[in-house]
């Protein structure tokens, strides 16, 4: 639930709706009085076609709009060595047309119907979505079915090469040409063993993107892009009977694929020993990163770790923000987040010192605050701020059809229950101050990765040991 920089490579940021950004900005809802803001139930119907395609329908007639959101249960965590970034590259290729959809028409036809679309990839899943006037639902379903069932007949190397270039530019725009942009992949490589599905970032390496072949595209499609590996959520203004017929007509004839290869097993464990890294970058100020292994999504300690992240750096009164940024004014910014994914998770603290201050000074202060947290725990007020702010997100996520569709898929993927929001919210309500202290000791007390990003030629600023 914390802000998550892992969360996927969108196909095109230009198409992300303002609404999505607003949802991130405007958090709301607080259980100030227990009954004040119950998480509303979302009525839905879920069924499975004989070919294995899961379908989730949720009517919402408040506006004549509809959203289609399809999750394929494949992500960068499924990539093989030498092909990092492939799941996301493949996502781009899914928009390049299919047997009955010439190149370019996917977007043109949707736009002509007033629709927009996008897709995103993360370590665990790839999603594709369209949002549009309700009358255009059939078009979106037909387009999605054609690429699910008939992507390969018109697949060729020029399509792959073109999107390979686009994705390389995405990497440049989002990582290589961005200050501190390579910090994250540096940390992942140290946080997880090389064989771990999360040891590389979803965007992948330039070398591996160059290596991807047409044969890889075909194999990946045949392995993962089958109806039995997908869930389609349709939310908005429609008649269920009509939509069920459409889904049957368009998707019913797509053959079931082979069994999906199982993912490697991973063991939740801390990094074996404290690790210190340095990365030179074109930056004015150094930056300090701490990273720990944490837990997988919906693990029993997941919610308490999210609360801990909030207490550490979630608002102006949080431990690190108040002391380093507000009171002492030695740091320009701080952040902390727990990111729990399907198999495993990570917890990060990031601090940028102000000019004239060093990463080592920051490390000392962070360590003091972590010590205080693990020794003394947190106050009830800190807990309430974290819980209320977290709770705030639950209403806004379902304000739009698209948000609702993605949430139904999210919970379906992780829990098997599309409308799991109430239970999810309850996890946060149940967290106690004692839980937060316990997880702080259990996870943040363990060895971790320390990365110092420094300006070129300033490696002497690196934090090289545990600072007392």
């Amino acid at each position, binding site marked *: 639930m914390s802000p998550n920089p892992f969360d996927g490579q969108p196909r095109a940021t230009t198409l992300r709706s303002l609404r999505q950004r607003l949802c991130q900005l405007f958090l709301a809802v607080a259980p100030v009085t227990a009954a004040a803001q119950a998480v509303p139930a979302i009525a839905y119907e879920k069924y499975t076609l004989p070919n294995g395609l899961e379908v989730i329908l949720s009517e919402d007639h408040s506006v004549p709009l509809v959203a289609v959101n399809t999750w394929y249960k494949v992500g960068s965590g499924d990539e093989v060595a030498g092909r990092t970034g492939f799941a996301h590259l493949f996502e781009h290729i899914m928009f390049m047309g299919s047997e009955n959809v010439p190149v370019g028409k996917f977007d043109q036809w949707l736009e002509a119907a*007033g629709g927009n679309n996008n897709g995103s990839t993360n370590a665990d899943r790839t999603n594709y979505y369209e949002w549009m006037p309700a009358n255009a639902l059939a078009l979106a379903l037909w387009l999605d079915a054609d690429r699910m069932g008939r992507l390969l007949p018109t697949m060729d190397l020029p399509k792959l090469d073109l999107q390979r270039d686009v994705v390389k530019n995405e990497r440049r725009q989002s990582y290589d*040409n*961005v200050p501190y942009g390579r910090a994250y992949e540096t940390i992942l490589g140290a946080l997880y063993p090389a064989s771990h599905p999360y040891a590389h970032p979803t965007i992948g390496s330039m070398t591996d993107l160059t290596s991807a072949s047409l044969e890889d595209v075909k194999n990946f499609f045949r392995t993962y892009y089958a109806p039995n590996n997908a869930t389609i959520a349709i939310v908005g203004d429609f008649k269920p009977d009509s939509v069920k017929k459409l889904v049957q007509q368009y998707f019913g004839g797509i053959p079931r694929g082979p069994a999906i290869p199982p993912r490697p097993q991973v063991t939740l464990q801390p990094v074996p020993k404290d690790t210190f890294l340095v990365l030179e970058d074109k930056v004015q100020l150094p930056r300090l990163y701490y990273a720990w292994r944490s837990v997988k999504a919906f693990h029993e300690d997941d919610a308490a770790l999210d609360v801990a992240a909030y207490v550490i750096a979630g608002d102006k009164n949080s431990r690190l923000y108040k002391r380093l940024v507000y009171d002492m004014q030695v740091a320009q910014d701080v952040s902390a987040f727990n990111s729990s994914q399907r198999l495993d998770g990570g917890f990060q603290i990031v601090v940028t010192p102000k000019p004239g201050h060093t990463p080592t000074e920051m490390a000392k202060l962070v360590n003091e605050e972590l010590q205080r947290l693990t020794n003394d725990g947190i106050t009830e007020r800190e807990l309430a701020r974290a819980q209320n702010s977290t709770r705030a997100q639950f209403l806004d996520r379902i304000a739009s059809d698209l948000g609702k569709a993605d949430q139904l898929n999210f919970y379906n993927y992780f829990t098997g229950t599309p409308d799991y929001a109430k239970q999810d919210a309850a996890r946060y309500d149940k967290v106690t101050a004692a839980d937060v202290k316990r997880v702080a000791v259990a996870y943040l007390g363990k060895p971790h990765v320390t990365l110092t990003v420094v300006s070129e030629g300033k490696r002497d600023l690196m934090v090289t040991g545990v600072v007392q």
Partner: protein
Amino acid sequence: MTSRRTGTVSPAIASAVALLLATACSHSAARGSTTAAAPTPAPAATAAAVDLTKPPVLGAPKTLTLPEVVSRELPNGLRLMIVEQHELPLADFVLVVKSGGETDESGKLGTATLATSLLKEGTTTRSSLQIADQEAFLGVDIFANSGWDATTIRLHTPTAQLDSALALFADVALHPAFPPAELERLRKNRLTSLLQVKDRAPEIANRAYAAIVFGTAAYAHPLTGDEASTNAIQQADVRRFYDTYVRPNNATLLVVGDVRPDDVERRARALFGGWQRGTVPPSNYGQPAPAKGTTIYLVDKPGAAQSSFRIGGVGVARSTADYFPLTVMNTVLGGSFTSRLNQNLRETKGYTYGASSGFAMRRTPGPFTASAEVVAAKTDSALIEFMKEVRAIRDTVPRPELEKTKQYLQLQLPGRFETTGDIATQLAQLVPYDVPLSFYNGYTQGIAAVTPADVQRVARQYIDPEKLAIVIVGDRKSIEPTLKATKVGDVVVVDITGRPAM
């Protein structure tokens, strides 16, 4: 009720949708799928007959009955615009003040944004940390921000705790203390941010581009000022901005969500009724210098993996009579995923992750800008393609492309009114420019009326390929020779302020 406009109900949004229906009907026919596909989305029971090789023919878009906008006005001149939306127990309160960064005085650039940032840093009864504590405890968010022509203070809240949330919101908006210690803290923070701007090529490009296009006019300077101006701003300056411009007769309170107009008015009177009117002077926007011949302004960013492009010049004001033709023309050029710039530079050439263009329509003409982040090795090739497109848009746009674009603009209008936040955002865009609420009423019709000749006329009138400012931030050593070889224009090496660099 004593206010002049009590109870006037604007039909603006409600009837926007009826018009939408009328024009949208032509859409399915225009899509070209005239083959005998089964009519959907109401397929016949004989599913086997469906032709899966053709896209379905769509029915007409449904009518969207958007809620009414209720307009009221308090005796002190504060306008209220209220939209009921009862789907979720949420509400957005947006106080839009019709003055922003354009009021900054030279030497004190960045005053408006600094003053606005300080609203949450202490009131006469609450400290900065107390405000933040209440926000988090209530689970609400309050944003305060100054842009061009407007300052916005926004509350998003569940309605269950409207009393506490509104009290906090009104306190932040009406009783700022501008504590000196907080000013010094934000000053230090801003100086560090300005230092960090040097890390980000897109931000360098934005700053250099505005400076070059607007020269000494208001929109030339960065909203957050520069180092010298940040050091110069005093508490009296931020207070003067607030006292002068943040006045009820220069503001509108938008309220969207699970509320009732009478209740909103009652609360607004209690919280904002005592707010004093003021005399709000007009702003001096200055005049940008006439555009020069097309010139490439190169800002060196050694080793940059990509080059940041900003191409264009002075565009139009929000009050332009050419709003609809310009909207259509720009959407064809760079306003959607299938627009020419994105199709060419991204989907055909693969030079970039995305290319786009837009007119920033402000109180006086804002910039027209075409932009992209381009792989360094294709900087010259990308410039050539940009130039091809700004020239080609002067030719007649083929009818199918024009129709697709118009349908896109018309049919996606309802999607801009889905959530409380969406509705508030749409209305907030009208307020600073006194655009009547009937604007959305006429939107679909306005787009429908645009002809190929209109598009060609505005393209020729507002985008002159011979008078473009082309700002490129990238690795000078590798890109300067190839840029010169394009012969698109003289290459002038400048710094982040647009002034010639050494």
